[in-house]
């Protein structure tokens, strides 16, 4: 990724966090928490594993069914992307 694209990706992440913090997004509370945790846990390529989110302070106290429902809804809204190789539990954060 070029330097310009890397900085634009960081900017979009900052704007997205602001959108969520100000309550301007149309996501439910569990979806917001899971998405924030995903943004924080994702590596340089935007990838993360579900077990990383399950241990993250934002989503650790969430009931398992609520967590996986939120994860599924975020996937449907194309904010989180499942790994195309179908590697279990591997997701990536969509460019917003």
């Amino acid at each position, binding site marked *: 990724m070029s330097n310009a*694209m890397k900085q634009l990706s960081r900017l979009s992440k900052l704007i997205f966090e602001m959108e969520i913090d100000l309550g301007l997004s149309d996501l439910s509370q569990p979806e917001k928490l899971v998405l924030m945790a995903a943004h924080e846990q994702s590596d340089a390529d935007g990838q993360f594993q579900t077990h990383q989110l399950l241990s993250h302070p934002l989503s650790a106290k969430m009931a398992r069914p609520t967590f996986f429902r939120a994860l599924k809804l975020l996937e449907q809204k194309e904010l989180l992307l499942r790994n195309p190789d179908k590697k279990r539990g591997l997701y990536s954060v969509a460019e917003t």
Partner: protein
Amino acid sequence: MLRRLNLDWLTFVVVSVGYISAYTITSGLVMPLQKIFAPQLPVVFSLLFLPHGIRVLAVYFLGWRGILYLIPCSYLMWAISVYGSSIDLAILSPLASLSVVYVAVRMVKTFTESRSTDAFGFSWKECLAIAAIASVFNGIVLSILHGNSFNWILMIGYSSGDMAGQIVLLLLLIAFMKINRKLSKFI
């Protein structure tokens, strides 16, 4: 030379387009409205100066290189709008405005590092803190450059315009990204 300074053309184009667009909206839309609704205000400052937001974001994300990327477009817009309209504003003003943003970034980053928080992360609250500090510094420096002495009215005018510009720019970016997300579902 560009490679030695670790600068690249794509970043330069993105930053320049952002700055020139923000400046064009300010001078083409905000300033005429300001002249209609607040004709008593001096024409040297805008109550909603969007380019300040671009300056803060560029220096926040790119560090001192952000200043180098912004110098050409800052002077281009200064030459067109300020010099071209015979407004009495010092030639050093674009450079001074960029320098105060860098000082504000260093101040806030030093503070966050001393509090052992995530010094390498970026947050919108930190960004707004930088914008607020830089807008006050910018107001002081520009009011001095404008009349060779400190002027409270100019200082408050510059500062409030810069801060309002930063907030509105971030809100515009949120709106832009929401629209972009909605449109991308149809493509």
